[in-house]
């Protein structure tokens, strides 16, 4: 019998570099033991590990800032939605440097 491990946002209380390292160790360990794992993470690099299948939560087609609750196979998004929102409202570094006198 092959066990299934479900992990939600594991290793999110450390930096994402360390989170990635730990995810890699953890998933490698599971992979070595031939078990399945459903691993929910915000760290995009995890999806590039050789033994993973990447799924992604799609934004709503009508409003990209809302979730569609659909999860489909595919690589992690290339840009962060939060950064896009911040850019839309001019809250990134250069925007603020211009505004603050």
């Amino acid at each position: 019998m092959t066990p299934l491990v479900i992990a939600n946002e594991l290793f999110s209380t450390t930096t994402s570099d360390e989170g990635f390292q730990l995810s890699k160790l953890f998933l490698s360990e599971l992979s070595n033991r031939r078990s399945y794992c459903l691993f929910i993470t915000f760290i995009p690099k995890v999806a590039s590990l050789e033994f993973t299948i990447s799924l992604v939560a799609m934004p709503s087609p009508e409003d990209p800032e809302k979730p569609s609750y659909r999860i489909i196979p595919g690589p992690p998004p290339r840009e962060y939605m939060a950064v896009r929102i911040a850019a839309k409202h001019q809250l990134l570094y250069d925007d603020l440097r211009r505004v603050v006198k």
Partner: protein
Amino acid sequence: MIQFDLLRVEGTTRIPTPVADDIRVDLELDKIIEVASNGDKLIAETWLNTLLLKDSSEDAVRYRQEAVKDALVNRNAILSMYSIARDTLERVRRDVFIFRRDDPSSITRETARGIGILVDGLNSLLSILKSTNFSSKAFRDLVISLTANINESFISSARYIVGMFDYNKDIVFSVKVGSYNYLRDPALLVPKDEGSLFSRLLSFGKEYTYRLDPRDEAGPQILHDIKNWVLLRAASILLDAYNKMRRFFEDLMKQLSFYVGAINMSDFFTKMGLPQTYPDISSGRFAFEDLHCLSLAISSSRKPVPSTLEVNTDGAFAVLITGANRGGKTTFLKAVGQAILLARAGLFIPAKSFTIPAPGAVYTHFLRGEDRTLSYGKFEEEVRRFRGFAGLLRRGDFVLMDESFSSTNPVEASVVAENVVSALADSGVNVFYVTFLQDFIYNFTRKYGERAVLLVPERLSNGERTFRLVMGTLQPGFAMDLWAKLYRETMSGNK
């Protein structure tokens, strides 16, 4: 013209409403104002306006600070002046009815009555000011201006003029009849001293008198119109004087209300045994010793756990506060915010010592509500709220952030937080930020060196929490070490 300025807030504006409301709620200013005002609406309004001033200079802070110290030393004089101003205005409100703006005779009578009340108030003020030895420029200037403009002879002549328009007395005036029977040269006459009954008997029958026919209905109306015409100038002068004097009392009461609030607050400090210090302003230094959160002291009716911090940097700094929940992080943030607001208002602080680099304004960006689910919609609301005050920020200001940008996942939020906090620090704005965004903390503290200060809740070796924050350090590799250790233990346990 009596000129005085007890607050030195002229020309400065309040932080605009939606932003000001956030600061008020986030820093629990209502609790502080409630203690200061003790139910007095005017004190509450003045305190809120002064705490939420957009600009404040070092000079203005020192000016008010000196006046607050003075007010606490001469508290009885301040309280009496405030109650004289309040009672005088209350009497005026009750007794003076200018119900017709087009009727000079009622205006002269009513304003004269009002001036009479206001002059009584001035007289009482004067006697207090003369017997009080103020040391601050604010109050000394008030005394100088008031005594230069108001003295006993002013008061007695004002009372005399007011007496001329008393309701129980007739108004005496003269007019001349010019060509074509036009009336000219209207003049109010000083009423003759009625003197004794004997002198009145002697003069009886010596005046020219007139009598109107009882059936003459137009006659009294014409006489009334003539009287109004004569009173026209007097009415406008009296109304002007009345309004100016009333405004003086209103201004005085408003400005004094700030100091009455300070007296009430000082009493609260004494009752709670809170330390009371006046802040220093010293560029390149942000430091305090045993700072208490005032709103927590008020709501819990006990002395909260104090905090101590010292940051010495050229340029702006960012204090990042992280670590376990219920460790006093938000309380720390509130204590700092409240103290800066009190400091720039010229008030005392519940600390042993308190130094700020400049009296910059405080802006807050706190996590709202208990709903901790993540969504881009909520994140956008956070971004919008931040953007709402970003345009007001100036070099030397302070931004207090409580778990900002935590409505999205920590990886993305860290990127935004790094953008925002770096831009603020590089623009000369100081930041206090309670955050769990590990990527941000790691990257920012590495990049900004001494300008980034990391605070964590103190834990004693027995695991007990002290609710104090202490300097923390980055622990790179800690998670990896922990993994390795646990892995080894598990493996050896499995064998």
